[in-house]
């Protein structure tokens, strides 16, 4: 989470802290039950077009997605049935003037109160997932992600490793599995969007703002990432990859890249300044792997 929004409900102030956290625990328990049930029944609940993803928070987001979708299908289905019933049942058949009824207070109260309850339920579920997602657990692995027109720079502080690549050079961010990875996200010029589909997650890279969040991958593999916020001419080509590897592979990768990365960064930086042609997808560089 960003510096500016670091105030989370449980850690707000010393007094009232226990009260608040107790209330939160209670809310969490109430809301977590159906979500946990959903998670257990993961294979039977439809995906509604989403996927569980490769991080812990992508999974809780996915379950929240399923919960919202179940609500949407029920509410939407019910409302559609009402519309279709009215459309087919009350087609004009005669010149009759129907009863001019205009108010039905109990009915009106029902369709006001029920949506309020649904909305509060959705909000509670949202808060449970959100608080998990914006939590900043302690970690030893930090990656500084810097977005620029039109590429990405991944710096591993203290490791002397820098990965940088623009547009179709497909820079790869390597991170260890089952580890909390702290991301410091910045931008050098305009606003960019750090988006990894398999993580069900995106965050703006803002000039002048340090955005921080934690990723904890639970699957190894290589995942597509892309800039999602319009950032100028080659926005469409501002792609990258995230490679989640085992912790030992990660350590090996760090040592083998520590020496070459400095030269590589310099080379890419020169390219960034001089390149003015449209980069094509065929000029892929494997150098960062």
């Amino acid at each position: 989470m960003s510096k500016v929004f670091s105030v989370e409900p449980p850690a707000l102030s010393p007094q009232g802290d226990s009260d608040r956290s107790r209330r939160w625990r209670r809310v969490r328990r109430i809301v977590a039950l159906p979500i946990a049930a959903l998670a257990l029944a993961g294979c039977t609940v439809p995906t509604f077009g989403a996927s569980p993803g490769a991080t812990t928070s992508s999974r809780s987001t996915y379950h929240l997605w399923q919960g919202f979708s179940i609500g949407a299908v029920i509410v939407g289905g019910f409302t559609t049935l009402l519309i279709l019933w009215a459309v087919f049942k009350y087609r004009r058949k005669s010149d009759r003037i129907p009863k001019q009824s205009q108010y039905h207070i109990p009915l009106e109260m029902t369709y006001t109160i029920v949506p309020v309850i649904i909305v509060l339920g959705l909000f509670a579920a949202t808060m449970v997932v959100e608080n998990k997602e914006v939590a900043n657990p302690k970690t030893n692995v930090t990656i500084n992600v810097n977005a620029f027109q039109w590429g990405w720079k991944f710096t591993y502080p203290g490791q002397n490793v820098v990965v940088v690549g623009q547009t179709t050079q497909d820079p790869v961010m390597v991170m260890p599995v089952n580890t909390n990875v702290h991301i410091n996200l910045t931008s050098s010029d305009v606003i960019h969007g750090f988006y990894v589909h398999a993580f069900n997650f995106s965050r703006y890279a803002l000039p002048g703002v340090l955005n921080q969040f934690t990723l904890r991958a639970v699957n190894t593999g290589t995942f597509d990432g892309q800039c999602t916020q319009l950032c100028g001419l080659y926005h469409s080509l501002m792609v990258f990859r995230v490679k989640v590897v085992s912790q030992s592979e990660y350590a090996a990768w760090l040592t083998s890249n520590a020496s070459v990365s400095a030269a590589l960064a310099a080379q890419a930086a020169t390219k960034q300044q001089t390149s003015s042609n449209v980069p094509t997808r065929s000029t892929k560089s494997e150098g960062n792997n």
Partner: protein
Amino acid sequence: MTDVLDPPIATEHDDHDHEEHHGPTGILKWMTSTDHKVIGMSYTVTAVIMMVIGGALAEVIRAQLTTSNNSLVSFAQYNELFTMHGSVMIYLFVGPFAFGALANIIVPIQIGAPDMAFPRLNALSYWLYLTGSITMLSGFFVAGGAANFGWVAYAPLSNSINTPGAGADLWIGGLLLTGFSAIFTGVNLCATIFYLRAPGMTMFRMPIFTWNLLITAILILLAFPVLTAGLIMLYCDRHFGTHIFSVQGGGVPVLWQHIFWFWGHPEVYILALPFFGMVTEIIAVFSRKPVFGYKGMVFATLSIGALSLGVWAHHMFTTGVVLLPFFSIMSLLIAVPTGIKMFNWIGTMWRGEVWFSTAMLMAVGFLITFLIGGLTGIYLASPPLDFFTHDTYFVVAHFHSIVMALVLGAMGGLYYWGPKITGYLLNETIGKVQFWFLFIGTQVFTLPMYLLGLRGMPRRVATYALHPGWQFLNQVSTVGAILIGISTVAFMVNIVYSWKKYPAGDNPWDAHTLEWFTTSPPPHHNFYRLPQIRSERPTWDYNHPGHTAAEHGHHHEHQGEHHDEVPVA
């Protein structure tokens, strides 16, 4: 039968204005008129032309996205295309159509007024709108092309370093002009509705369409000046060396987003509420029933207006610099009054006698499409789900469901009120063909985009690499866009085919409100006579004296009383 019950009441114009108004005709009339109906007609025609221009841009966008790695247009052209598509549709079509076109024509007549409160200001609004539109579109003809930073113009992409061209300045200038046009229309609508209602037309006897336009006008007055101020700041940043939105000079880029969305989210309702109003009128008239839960609906609209001012940062969840829970709950809460409206519409049809004219079909099409767009909007109010879908095609699909629902509403409004404005009906068969192309086209166009977003396709990309399923879904969406294009052609064909063919008469739909009491088209200053106004349906009450609206549970007792209450002058 009506003669005995309810003789016409003389209005002030009876004394001097019974004959036709004499004035310039033809193009001179159009150029010089301050008559709200002529200005409204100019607005309507201009807005529909903008819809066609914006739609043509959309078709090129869809053509480019039909195959992966397509190169029909360049990256630079693509950025101009979607920027101008969004800008034309939002700033130059939907908005002006919502509060400038039909509102201008119908609102004064619905409340029994001879014109808008400030007729010359009204004319100024139109001319500012037209000049603003031409200014913005002229960007296509300058070096460097039209604006290309998206219709939201996020700083610092919109500064003079990243977007140096004159197209961007023309975009800002055009938007300033149309913004002032909107503010003046807002002033005019407020003054008209507060001060020019006919005797007997109390606030709670105003038709829902007029109510919605009043709330729209208030939102315009609250939101548009903020945008105007923001645009001036942006222009100063670009040309006068200020650093309001640039980090280098100590400015804050996110401030632009706050300003833009503080206008931008009320704007969503500024666009939507007038169409909600149109659909409400249409559903009530073609179901032959009063609006179900009229007062509840008014309060729902008021609370939508109030809540809409406190939800802007849900567009900024992924910036990481806004308080998530507050904007989440406010955004979720908007679903409640919107849901109330949905049930009001269904309740109005319930146990009615629903006549499926083209206008009513469009209204039902609106209900379904708006339901889809509304439900998918609820996901976006939840920050974790917004992190997941933000800036992907899911969002694009969501707001296209909403806006296409508004287009269905707009078409319904044109079929419903067109006969009142022109005196002639449109052909119903062609109208129904148009409806089915528009309705099916909309779903074929938007539903694949939801899936594309869930599969990770970002918005505003000119090309996409070969991802499984992306190309096929894009092709389906393109087919939908073509169907929508065909529906627009059908609409044009209908206008030409039906030209002065089917005289409408004063009240072809057996409608409820005052505009159907006067002639089609209405005379200069609108009325020779007015009926008694004792409910929000004066024309219906006049034509069906035994069928006034019933209170809950008191239907039979009240019906007779009302009958006697009508005074005989």
